[in-house]
């Protein structure tokens, strides 16, 4: 019985992330539009977009290889697994033992690898430009992410997310400059990874600036729907990751009853809403950067991660 209950909770988590992901993007778009005093599309618009794309036929380029057709599903699967591993409402999930920060980084990295390959597959110049920019951004964002993971792991003594969340809820955390630095660095990495405004503009198709949109330019129909859903999932993943590590309050501990899980779910939706609104506010107050300034932006994230680790060594070494 216990196993069935555990499986039910894990299944609920897996379906929850997929069901909520378009809504999160919808909330961000709506909030951004309202902040600019526009009406904006309804919050449910991403769901309708996905449905419409699902119904449409796929138009394939003549020289598209099997990889071009397989890549969307691979990317979606890797992103979905990564998003399902991050604790959202409860920590003690069936697959918690594998919810490791390094594993999540690796899953996202392989998704990006296939996306970059798919962008170059057809051989148009747009896809190539998108892939090369994406890989440039990734080559800076991933070291920064790994530095953040290191400093968190040094603090909590584990790279497992549920252990880190438990440590962050315990009183022995104290006031740590390292945590502040990692928090800022993780937000910067999340912004770069999700192609949000200072790095990439998700709302335009301007060839000078686009990165993510350029790679999925050749896709249509259900392939595009799957890729869009993967992008929504990635945004949800980063918001839940930040919420889980830096604001784990309300997270249901392992073997919790239904009441605690419900409280956890309510807290999670509050945190998700807050994260979306903060992201929208941030995006409306800042201008898009030139592509060549992105290394400076991500270099700052890497520097914060490094400095956080160094300062941690000082307080540990004393």
């Amino acid at each position, binding site marked *: 019985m216990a196993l069935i209950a555990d499986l039910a909770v894990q299944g609920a988590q897996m379906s929850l992330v997929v069901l909520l992901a378009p809504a999160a993007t919808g909330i961000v778009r709506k909030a951004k539009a309202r902040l600019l005093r526009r009406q904006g599309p309804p919050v449910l618009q991403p769901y309708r977009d996905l449905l419409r794309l699902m119904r449409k036929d796929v138009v394939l380029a003549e020289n598209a290889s099997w990889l071009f057709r397989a890549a969307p599903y691979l990317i979606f699967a890797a992103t979905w697994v990564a998003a399902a591993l991050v604790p959202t409402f409860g920590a003690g999930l069936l697959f918690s033992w594998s919810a490791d920060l390094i594993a999540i980084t690796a899953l996202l990295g392989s998704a990006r690898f296939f996306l970059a390959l798919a962008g170059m597959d057809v051989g148009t110049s747009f896809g190539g430009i998108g892939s090369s920019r994406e890989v440039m951004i990734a080559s800076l964002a991933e070291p920064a992410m790994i530095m953040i993971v290191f400093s968190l792991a040094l603090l909590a003594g584990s790279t497992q997310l549920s252990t880190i969340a438990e440590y962050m809820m315990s009183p*022995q955390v*104290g*006031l*740590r*400059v390292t945590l*502040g*630095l990692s928090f800022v660095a993780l937000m910067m990495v999340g912004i770069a990874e999700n192609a949000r405004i200072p790095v990439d503009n998700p709302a335009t198709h301007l060839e000078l600036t686009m990165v993510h949109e350029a790679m999925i330019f050749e896709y249509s129909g259900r392939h595009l729907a799957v890729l869009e859903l993967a992008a929504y999932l990635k945004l949800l993943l980063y918001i839940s990751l930040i919420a889980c590590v830096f604001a784990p309050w309300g997270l249901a501990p392992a073997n919790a009853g239904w009441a605690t899980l419900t409280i956890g779910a309510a807290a999670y939706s509050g945190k998700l809403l807050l994260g979306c609104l903060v992201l929208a506010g941030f995006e409306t107050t800042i201008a898009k950067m030139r592509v060549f300034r992105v*290394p*400076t932006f991500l*270099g700052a994230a890497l*520097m*914060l991660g*490094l*400095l956080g680790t*160094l*300062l941690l*060594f*000082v*307080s540990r*070494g*004393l």
Partner: protein
Amino acid sequence: MHGLNFDIAHLLAGSLVLISLVMLYQDRLPALINIYAFHALFLSLSVAWQAHINNAPHLYITAAIALLFKAIFIPLALHRMIVRLGIHREIEAVASVGPTMLAGIGLVGLSLSVMLRVTTDADLLAREDVAFALSVLLIGLLIMVTRRNAVSQVIGFMSLENGLVLAATGAKGMPLVVEISVAFSVLIAFIVIGIFLFRIRERFDTVDVHALDRFRGERR
């Protein structure tokens, strides 16, 4: 673990190092001056906190001096100065940001590893202060080396001096007379440098120090 007192001291001193690194890549003069004001503000907070936990009332005076002169008076004077020199809208070409930042991080790592090993039998707070002070000092030197504009070199010098005050805070028993005289000598140095800047500008029509090399007869 060390408790909240130490954690807050660590937080403030660590922020000082972080702000030094931010100063390293800032290329607009007004922003650089504002960050310098923040640097001095955090120095003053850090000194005041250590005065509080060590029951050392004379350190409050150091904190007050840092707050009044370095966080308020000098930044205001520098703002006025760059407006009068007409360089407040210029963007300074900082020599390649990436290597400079790497050098800065390397200096922080170096000073931490050296200082923590040298001062094994000292007080906890003093060790940490001295380690962070050395990195602030080295980054201040790095700022002075990488800049071409004389005003930002002055700011590098001032941030270096903040590092010295942090080190002096950790060291027990620095007399108040020394502290006050150091503070005033920095102020005097600031005034003298300010006068020199105007003289340099009058003579060479620029505050870019590379112009001086030409007049010294150096070949590049």
